[in-house]
Each structure stands twice: as structure tokens, then as C-alpha cells.
């Protein structure tokens, strides 16, 4: 709970920084605040306390995800000082990101549909603005508009769904909704069923699952790279935490209603995401499709109702987000001068920048799910939870997807060792190198010692 208050306080003070004139210290202040929030999250561990008349529940699941979200934001802030160089909009960028984080935390810890809705909206509205934060750039504007229109549309679905479920159950509380479904599991009212499917649609949009993924490639490509990095890590993690809670807590008793739908969505997401990524030449767009594909794997955990599936999802989001941040950070560095975001920017780097090349290899191998890196264990963990739940055929599809994934991740590795191109060496700051090293080492460490976070939920 303190975490939420601290985060909100940082967000507000960011807004006042301009007036009160402590703009210079803002970066330090934000980092310190995030560290503080992280500490309070850790201190809350195991308390399992409900707040605001049961509207928020800080159980270990939500605390774990909150911690992960804060760590990802910290890493993100270390990565993105460039983003805040524009003097006119420095403070609101900080505030928007922090408020988005507040929304993300609510999404991970709601126990009331209204809080879920609020969380999603706080997060989304900040992101609509951030996506369009390069005001003079046409693609950035396009991204913002697309994201906003489709996002608002999805929010509509969510609200409809919540309303219908309220109509059927008379409650916004997920425990009570769950109790209603348990009582009427043989004959739930069609109102509630329609509500469930509407919510499923809205959530599928937020996690960019096929066939609700069309916004993702354009938005990812058009937004400033740092914002894309934020979307594909923090936002995605929060959306999955919310979806997992919703379906495995509130809607578990009517599993048979949404089982097949999600099954089909998983298959479509994994296959379409991976196959389309193979054909991309723009690195950011490729990562967008790969993030769609990863959403497919993560969605498997929602389907697998086993004791281990929440841990599996948590591990997967952590492993995926860490390696994504690495990938985006490298891209940020490489494209800074030329503005070129194609896979070509990686060419010949193995000789000119062995450090960067090594980091990139680790990130790509982890995303591709090759042992002994975190990405492999994450995939294994999700696969084993899914197999335990009896979906062997789904795992076979996922394996096919991973195999296709190798094509595009390895394209980057192949480019690194290209012999024809000569690259000049690229300079980067100490903190940036440290960030790259930390995320890459984390990918190795989580792969070698998955027990560190594998069973904590």
C-alpha cells in the first residue's frame, strides 16, 4: 500500500517540479523514489492485506508483479535519459511514466472490477500521450492516434463486460463474482457469459493477442524507441498480471466457457506472431511481432490451471522483459546517430563492438529460448505447467513457434558477424553499459539459478 502512495507522490512531485524549480534533481528523485517503493513492496511481502473496502488486495502475486514492474521501470529510467533531454516536456514525461506505473500496479493488485478499469485507464491514457510524444514526427502521431482509437474501443468492451457481469452478479468484487460463478457453474446467466467474453476481448486487445493485435506493430514502430520499450515490458507485464488474476480467480469456475476461445487465441497468436516476425526488416517492428508471439506463450499460463502457472507467468514476464530491455537499449544506442532502425544496424558489430555484440547475442538467445538463459527456463516452465494441465498439443504448437522464432532472432546474430561491413565503434556512457551488463547478467543468472524467483508466488 505504501508503494502505491510513494509512486503517486513521485508522480505528483514530477508535475510540480517545473514550478518549484527542482527540475535538475528530478532524475535522482525519481530513481530514489522507485528504490523506496521497491523496498516497501518487499517489506509488505506475505502480509496479504486487502485495502479500500476490499478493492485492492496486496497478496504475494500482486507484490511480486509490483516489484517486477518497479525494477523494470528503474532499468527503463537508466536506459532513457535521452528521452528527457527535450527541455520543454521533461517533467510531464516523468509524470506520465510514473502514473502509468501506478496504473500498472493497480492492474496487478485489483480485487474489484472498478480498480481494474481504473488501472487500465490510468496506464493507457498516459501511454496514448507518450506514444505521440515526438510531436513533429508523423509516425509518432500516427501511433498515438491508432493506439488511442483502438484502445478506447477496447476499453468500451471492457466496460460493457464489467456492466453485464455486474448485472448478473450484483457485484464488482472478484471474490463475489467467483462465488456467483461457482454457485451457478452449471447454468450461469447468459448476461454473465457475454460479459466474460467482452472482457476477454478487451484483455486480448491489451496484451495484443491475435486477432486483436493489429495496432501493435504500427504503434511499436511509430512510438519513440524508449516508449516502445516501456510498452513491451511494463505494460505487457501489468496486462498479463491483470488477465491472469481475472481469469484464474474470478472466472475459473466457468473455465469451460473461455477455454476453447483462449486455446484458439494462443495458437493463432504464437503462429501469426512468429511467422510475421520472420518477414520484418525493421528491428523494432520485428520485436513488435515477437512480443505478440511471446504474448501467446504467456497466455498459455492463463489457460493452465495448475498450482505452478502463476509462478510460470511471473518468471516468463521477468525473463522476457529483461531481455527486451536489453534489445531495445542496444537498438537505442545503434540508431542514435543514423536514426536507422533496420536489422542492418547490427551488421559487423562483432568486430567493432564486441561488448555490445556479446550483450545482443545473450538477449537474442534468451528471447529465442536457448539454454542456459532465462528465456529457456521461462519457456520450459510455461510448457511444463501447460503439459501438467493436459494441453500437450498446445505445447507442440508453441514448440513450432519457438522454432520459427529462431529464424528472426538468429538473423540479428548472423548480422553481427557479417564480414563485409565495417562499423565504427560506438561510444556509450558508463551507466548505459552498466545497464546492458546488468540485464544480460540477469538473463544468465535467472537461467542458471531459476530457483531465485521461480517459486516465490
Amino acid at each position, binding site marked *: 500500500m505504501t508503494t502505491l502512495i510513494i509512486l503517486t507522490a513521485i508522480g505528483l512531485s514530477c508535475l510540480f517540479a517545473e514550478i518549484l524549480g527542482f527540475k535538475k534533481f528530478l532524475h535522482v528523485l525519481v530513481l530514489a523514489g522507485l528504490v523506496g517503493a521497491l523496498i516497501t513492496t518487499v517489506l509488505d511481502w506475505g502480509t496479504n492485506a486487502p485495502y479500500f473496502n476490499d478493492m485492492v488486495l496486496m497478496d504475494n502475486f500482486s507484490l511480486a508483479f509490483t516489484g517486477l514492474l518497479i525494477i523494470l521501470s528503474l532499468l527503463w529510467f537508466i536506459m532513457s535519459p535521452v528521452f528527457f533531454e527535450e527541455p520543454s516536456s521533461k517533467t510531464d514525461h516523468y509524470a506520465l511514466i510514473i502514473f502509468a506505473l501506478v496504473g500498472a500496479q493497480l492492474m496487478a493488485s485489483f480485487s474489484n472490477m472498478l480498480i481494474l478499469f481504473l488501472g487500465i485507464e490510468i496506464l493507457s491514457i498516459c501511454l496514448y500521450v507518450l506514444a505521440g510524444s515526438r510531436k513533429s514526427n508523423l509516425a509518432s502521431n500516427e501511433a498515438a492516434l491508432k493506439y488511442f482509437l483502438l484502445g478506447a474501443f477496447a476499453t468500451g468492451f471492457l466496460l460493457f463486460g464489467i456492466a453485464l457481469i455486474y448485472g448478473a452478479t450484483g457485484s464488482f468484487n472478484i471474490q463475489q463474482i467467483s462465488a456467483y460463478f461457482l454457485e451457478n457453474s452449471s447454468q450461469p446467466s447468459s448476461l454473465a457469459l457475454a460479459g466474460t467474453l467482452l472482457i476477454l476481448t478487451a484483455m486480448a486487445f491489451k496484451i495484443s493477442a491475435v486477432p486483436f493485435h493489429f495496432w501493435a506493430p504500427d504503434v511499436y514502430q511509430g512510438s519513440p524507441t524508449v516508449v516502445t520499450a516501456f510498452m513491451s515490458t511494463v505494460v505487457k507485464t501489468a496486462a498479463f498480471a491483470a488477465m491472469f488474476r481475472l481469469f484464474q480467480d474470478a472466472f475459473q469456475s466457468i473455465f469451460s466457457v473461455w477455454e476453447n476461445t483462449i486455446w484458439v487465441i494462443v495458437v493463432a497468436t504464437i503462429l501469426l506472431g512468429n511467422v510475421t516476425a520472420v518477414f520484418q526488416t525493421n528491428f523494432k517492428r520485428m520485436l513488435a511481432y515477437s512480443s505478440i508471439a511471446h504474448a501467446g506463450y504467456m497466455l498459455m499460463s492463463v489457460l493452465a490451471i495448475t498450482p*505452478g502457472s502463476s509462478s510460470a507467468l511471473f518468471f516468463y514476464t521477468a525473463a522476457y522483459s529483461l531481455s527486451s530491455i536489453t534489445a531495445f537499449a542496444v537498438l537505442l544506442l545503434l540508431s542514435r546517430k543514423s536514426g536507422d532502425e533496420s536489422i542492418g544496424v547490427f551488421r559487423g558489430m*562483432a*568486430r567493432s563492438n564486441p561488448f555490445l555484440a556479446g550483450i545482443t547475442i545473450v538477449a537474442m*538467445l534468451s528471447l529465442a529460448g*536457448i*539454454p*542456459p538463459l532465462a528465456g*529457456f527456463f521461462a519457456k*520450459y*516452465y510455461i*510448457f*511444463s505447467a501447460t*503439459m*501438467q494441465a493436459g494441453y*500437450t498439443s498446445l*505445447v*507442440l504448437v508453441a*514448440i513450432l513457434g*519457438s*522454432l520459427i522464432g*529462431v*529464424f528472426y532472432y*538468429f538473423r540479428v*546474430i*548472423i548480422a553481427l*558477424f557479417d564480414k563485409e561491413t565495417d562499423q565504427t565503434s560506438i561510444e556509450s556512457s558508463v551507466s548505459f553499459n552498466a545497464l546492458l551488463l546488468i540485464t544480460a547478467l540477469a538473463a544468465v543468472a535467472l537461467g542458471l539459478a*531459476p*530457483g531465485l524467483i*521461480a*517459486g516465490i508466488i
Partner: protein
Amino acid sequence: MMLSLLLFFPLLAAIAVLFSGTRAKHIALGATILEFLISISLVFKFLPDGGTQFVENYWWVQGLGISYHVGMDGISLLLVLLTTFLLPLIILSSFQHKHKNPGLFYFLILVMQSALLGVFVSLDAFLFYVFWELALIPIYLICLVWGGKDRVRITLKFFIYTLFGSLLMLVALIWLWTQTPGNHSFELSSFYALNIDPANQTWLFWALFLAFAIKIPIFPFHTWQPDTYTDSPTAGTMLLSGIMLKMGIYGLLRWMLPVIPEGVHEWSNIAILLCVIGIVYASLIAWVQKDFKRLIAYSSIAHVGLIAAGVFSLSFQGVHGSVFQMLSHGVNVVGLFFIADIIERRTQTRDLDALGGIRLVAPGFSTYFIIVLLASIALPLTNGFVGEFLLLNGLYQYSTPAAVLAGLTVIFGAVYMLNAYRKIVLGEAAASTQSFTELNTNEKLVLIPIVVLIFWMGIYPDFFLKISEPSVKDLRDIIYSASGFSSN
């Protein structure tokens, strides 16, 4: 502790090598020789009848039943010895090439060694899988960075092909894990204790078979192999052919036969059929090859086809022969690829028709060549003979026609190998071989241990057979007691 030292010493050395610049190759050579000595010290401590030894067992991820569990029985020990014996030779043979970025090159080779050793000593399925996959990355990068002209396409095909098999194996292993009682476990012994119904044994058989068959490779899953062998740098080819394909055979022996004996009994006839087809098919293709390296690649498919057929015969001689032949094939094929490399470096060609008359200018080289070549076609007194004799004997117990067809490999092998020898070494000197120089010290240092081992294993095979015999017997007992089939 000894096994962990054996496993992780190359990894530590690899990191040192990565940052050592031009001295990389010497450090790498020193490290692999030291590693070889460590493994020799294990031979002295090893008790032939002692079952699995040097066991270390710690939890890795306790909640998921994953442990760091390693140990060696006779079969593992022989393969560990093969790996540690060949690595210094492979590194020494690469001294003849000037590799760009030597630090990275030898780093990858040493990481590869760790992974290969890990595969041979793992007693936990998850650990086994991690090492199995880990071996793939360095060899992929070695072939990608230092390979021939068409390397990008070929190496990607190789990688995806083998990864496909591996992932199927992963599904099979996870499924087996879900069947283990209690909190689930990846222990090899808990897999052995499973009672799996026949229907599931069937799909498990095919999932595991595909994984191992692609690695070995067994016809018709061999298509990645000739291109990859031809296009890789010689050190990479040696690692692949000498050691890595043994991972597949070892996988059959350790993770397939004893785990799903009924499935193996049910389908071994089809597996043997594929092996025999592969033997004949690859031999015939080897016959018409003009490229010497490619010829060795195809002959290798024929040889490992016979090894795999021996495994699937499920007879004592067949399995025992396969273990022995893994060693001799490893030694011989590395020797052959090294000779092909010597020829290519001096003449800039591997085309049989463009070569000839080397004997006139380099009789010493020709002698080494004929010894390795005769070992590869299984002449008595060489290591190849012992292995093929046992394998064919075992296959004969399974079925006479299969043994006869597989026996063709001996005849075909003699034909294409001697034919290649005639074209390269005998006859008139060709333009390309005019200035062929004799072997230098470095090259002799690689070939002499190989020749010594060829004769040692050929004349006194008991030394090696005794190490593996109790383990092979154990294996047979597990297979037959679990399935209720009569043993012969």
C-alpha cells in the same frame, strides 16, 4: 567434486582464453591437456563393477524436481575420455590455420567441451537437456563465423533442424516428468521406474527417436550433415563428427532404451530398417563423391548408421559394439578430416580428380593416411574391425538379412575409401601435388596419438571393453526386466 572439476574447468579456461588475445591457442591447448589428465586420473579411480560413480547430487530447482545430478558409469567414462582425448588434438590441428579473432574461437571450443562432457555425465533429464542444447550454440557460432562460403544458410538449417529434434525431446521429457510420482522429478532413476502404457511409449519413442536420429544422423534425417561438415572449419567438423554425433547414440543408450523399452521393442525394426537403408544409401553416395571432405561426411553417415543399428538390435554384442565403435569412429573420423585438411591446405583443392601421386613426394604422410583409412574400413588389427565385428554380430542375432545388408558397409567402405586413396596418393603426380611437403611436427603430434590409439584399440580392445561391459550388462538388464522380454 572431481566430476564438477572436470565439467567446469574448461568453462573457466574458456573465459581466460576469451581475453587472452593472440596467446589464446596455447592457453586453450594447455587447458585441454590438463583436462585430459584430469580425466585420466578418473580412470584410475574408476571401479569397473562399481555402477555409477563419482556421483554428485544437489538440488538445482527443488520445487520443480530439478537437480544437479552427475555421475559416470563405464559408458559415460569412455565417452568422456573420447572427448578429453580428442579436444587437444582438435585444437592442435587448428594451429595450422590462422583464425581471425582466436580468443572467441577457442572460447567457443572450450565451452563446447564443457557442454559435451555435461551431456555424457548428466543423470537428471533437465540437466541433460540444458547441456545438450548448450553444445549447439558454440558449434553453430564456430561454423557461422569461420565457415565456408554458404555458411549462413547451411548453419541455420543445421541449427533449426537439430533444435526441432531437441524440442520434441523436451516435450517427451516434460511428459515423463509429469508421470513421476509425488512432487515430480527429472531423476534418471525415477524415469526408469515409470510404468508407461504402450500407447504412450509409442509417441515417446518417436519424439525421442527424432531428436536423436537428427543428431546422429540416421537416414532420412541426415540432410543437414554433408553440407555442414563440408562448410565448417576443420575444427568444427571434427567436433561435430568426432564427438557431437555421439551425443545422439549416447542419448539412445541412456535416455531412450531403458526408459521406454516396450516402445523400443515395438518399433526397433523400423529404426533398424532406416539405419540399414542409410548405410547402403550413404555408402553409394560416398562412392561417387568427388570432394574428399564430402566423401568422409557420407562415409560417416554409413558408419554411424551401423552403430545405431547395433543399438537397436538390443543384443548385448550390438550395444557393446556400439559403445566401442563410438570411440573408434570418433578417433578415425577426426584423423580422416585432419588428413583432408592437410591435403586441402597444401593443394587448395579437395577434388579427387585434381589430386594424385602424393606418395611420390610425401611417403610419410601417405603412410599415416593409409593407416587411418584402413582403420576406417575396419581392417583386422585396427579399432574399426573390433567395433564392426561386434556390431554385425549383434545385428546378426537380431536378423540375418539386416546383418547382411549392413555388412555391405564393409565392402562399400573398402571400395570408396581405397578408390579415394588411389586417386589422391597413388598414380602420376598431379599439378596440384607437385610441391606437397611432408608432415611438420605439429601435424605429426596430432596423427601419432590417433595411430597409436587405432592399434591399441585394435590389438588389445579388452582394456576398453572391460570398462564398459558391466554398464552394458546393467543396461541390458534394465531393458529386459522392465519389459518382460526374454534376454538373449
